[in-house]
């Protein structure tokens, strides 16, 4: 699909099409803009050197996202960020939220802000499961953690977000 001399203009067009999704993947995985930029840079430089191996069987954006995801998760796995920690007592409450006190409209922004503040071992599985729509098996394999640990982390992460949502004033 690509000429041997790696057409720069074509690569620039592909960059313009895909950079938003790749950069935001970096932001979701690494939380800060500088790390996300370093990550995206590595992805594109890697892609540029491997353009010859792109067979053209799928869309370039799909292929590139897959490459980026693998690179990101490999990095996270190597940095061993998926260790389980005990849940804070603050969030251990299992009481149901009181009715008629909560306004649940427009809570996405709160969730997304709080999600980025979560520790990696909660945040990344949540993002992979709910945003990237990966299965437990895929996530478990990519992050090299047991399925039970993964489910536990997802559950605890959601519990923390639930508590943050209630604490941040979704009251009427």
């Amino acid at each position, binding site marked *: 699909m690509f000429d041997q001399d790696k057409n720069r203009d074509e690569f620039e067009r592909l960059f313009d099409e895909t950079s938003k999704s790749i950069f935001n993947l970096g932001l979701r995985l690494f939380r800060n803009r500088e790390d996300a*930029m370093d990550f995206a840079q590595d992805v*594109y430089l890697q892609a540029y050197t491997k353009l010859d191996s792109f067979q053209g069987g799928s869309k370039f954006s799909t292929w590139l996202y897959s490459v980026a995801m693998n690179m990101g998760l490999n990095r996270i796995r190597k940095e061993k960020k998926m260790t389980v920690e005990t849940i804070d007592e603050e969030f251990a409450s*299992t009481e149901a939220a009181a009715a008629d006190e909560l306004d649940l409209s427009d809570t996405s922004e709160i969730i997304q802000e709080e999600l980025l503040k979560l520790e990696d071992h909660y945040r990344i599985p949540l993002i992979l499961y709910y945003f990237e729509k990966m299965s437990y098996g895929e996530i478990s394999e990519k992050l090299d953690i047991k399925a039970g640990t993964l489910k536990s982390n997802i559950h605890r992460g959601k519990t923390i977000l639930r508590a943050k949502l209630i604490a941040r004033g979704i009251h009427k």
Partner: protein
Amino acid sequence: MKHYIEEIRQDTAGLTQEARRHLRECAACSREYQIMRAVETGIESMTESSVPAELKIRIFARISSPVYRLWHLLAAALMLASSPVLLKYLLTKNPSLYLNEYTLISLFVYFGILIVLVLLPLTFQLFGQYETKIHEIEKAFDHYLEHPVRNLAKIWR
């Protein structure tokens, strides 16, 4: 009446038919379901930020830099190293060879071009590799220049 709070908190998508029927009858479980769906929906619909312009500049600066392979450098180094040997051989084989000033100038220019050809790619490669670090040093330097008094006070302390 059995409640399904824990099941709802585990995963709303995995609720049984019985649990879903229960939601229609139980205000507490229904509310919990709404809260957990708000959490899940918030993650599913994460918004995206715009891409910094600097990213494209960085990437294309690296891509556009001359790509020298190792064998290019080795070949240039070999030519450079072998040139005096060749020259000596020529002079030995041809004692009558007369090196006039033009020949000498040409030889100097030839060696000079070879040296530049070896040094230039090395410079580009090194500069590209350390471009980000150089940029960080520049930023740090600018920051210290902007706030000299504050930084001097820090150092003094």
